[in-house]
């Protein structure tokens, strides 16, 4: 029986882990290696580790940090941030990372997805889609860590990258990020309904029950930041993860 995956999403910025609100104001969470050691001991399903400044600052992925992370990580690890070449991807995979997230560069150069999914296999390629609603309520894709709007919309872009060979879609709601008020279930429903590859939903979880809501809306996996690094909505830092029983309850298995 396949249990829906629950994935802590960790944001790396200038050598520390932070948690953002609407992709802004990174609040200090802690040292990445210590935090990952704790998540490993909690036997989390999977981890997503994103360098949120690499693309914006035009930096390479932090290979040394990735290498330290993988030596503490006995669960699947996804890396994202600043990845724009096959060479960098080879290096990241060789360090022990399973999957790589391509975000901004997938929007700029969708055919890159075709090339890398052929080379590395679709299962190792995740395309992230960061979505923000404009004044009229229309969902648009933003790149460069939510700072640069594009004319692409999540549904047509998800279809395109699926055709190009993406293995999963990592769907982020910028409006919901860090708000801890629940996922954008409408967005999840719309996008997951049009693709046949798995969708990882992220942005907005405030309780572990919300994770179930995301899956009910069509997500194959529920990712979250705040609830796994904060004790509660007062946002005092506490690394945590629900027990298997709690998860079974949420997903009613």
């Amino acid at each position, binding site marked *: 029986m396949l249990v829906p995956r629950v994935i802590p999403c960790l944001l790396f910025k200038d050598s520390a882990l932070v948690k953002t609100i609407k992709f802004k104001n990174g609040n200090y969470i802690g040292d990445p290696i210590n935090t990952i050691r704790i998540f490993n001991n909690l036997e989390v399903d999977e981890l997503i580790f994103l360098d949120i400044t690499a693309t914006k600052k035009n930096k390479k992925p932090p290979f040394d940090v990735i290498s330290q992370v993988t030596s503490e990580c006995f*669960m699947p690890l996804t890396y994202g941030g600043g990845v724009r070449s096959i060479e960098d991807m080879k290096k990241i995979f060789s360090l022990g990372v399973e999957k790589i997230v391509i975000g901004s560069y997938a929007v700029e150069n969708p055919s890159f997805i075709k090339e890398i999914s052929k080379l590395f296999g679709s299962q190792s390629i995740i395309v992230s889609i960061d979505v923000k609603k404009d004044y009229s309520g229309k969902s648009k894709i933003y790149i460069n860590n939510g700072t640069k709007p594009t004319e692409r919309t999540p549904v047509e872009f998800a279809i395109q990258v699926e055709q190009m060979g993406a293995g999963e879609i990592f769907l982020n709601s910028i409006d919901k990020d860090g708000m801890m008020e629940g996922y954008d279930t409408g967005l999840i429903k719309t996008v997951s309904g049009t693709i046949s590859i*798995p969708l990882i939903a992220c942005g907005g979880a405030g309780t572990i029950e919300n994770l179930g809501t995301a899956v009910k809306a069509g997500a194959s996996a529920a990712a979250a930041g705040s609830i796994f690094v904060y004790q509660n909505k007062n946002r005092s830092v506490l690394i945590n993860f629900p027990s298997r029983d709690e998860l079974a309850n949420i997903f009613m298995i």
Partner: protein
Amino acid sequence: MIVIIDYGMGNLSSIQNMLKKISVKSIISSNISVIKNADKLILPGVGSFDNGMGNLQKMSLISVLNKKVLIDKTLILGICLGMQLISKRSEEGRLPGLGWIEAEAVKFKFDNNHANLKIPHIGWNTIKIKKDCLLFKDMEENARFYFVHSYHLICTRGEDIAAMTDYGYEFPSIIQKENIFGVQFHPEKSHKFGKQLLKNFVEILC
């Protein structure tokens, strides 16, 4: 020494990291003489079938592997794509597989009752044990393992199947024929369950 075969197909250090955790020395290598002298072999692999077979061919590893596995009877563990490569062929590619077991890799195909299931099969899933196998020593009953794959094996001989996993239907998730072992999931990414399985493989007496 355990040799993790490096043929340019991903996730090698994660296997070595897990072996380090259980204090087992291993070496990542594509060197023919290193492979010749290995006590045990691990054939990992992430990627497409033809890339995998093509790389083994390009690096002239096929004949040394055939000799080690089929004649010297060295224990080998194929992981994920590595498990599929030891079959005869795959729907995913045109190149023949290593052909060590009577099996072929096919893509997941679901009937109407399971049409909502996504491909790849990604996530933690359980196994149903089909026969005694040394890999199961001290394995917890609710053991779960991490899977990521779009293709799975079908075995001609039922006795080669050690465990099945259910995703829309049952497929072989662990195979074993004499000295040849294969797992469809990633033990190196499956917490204590994968650690136990790798430990069991390491501890099998040759």
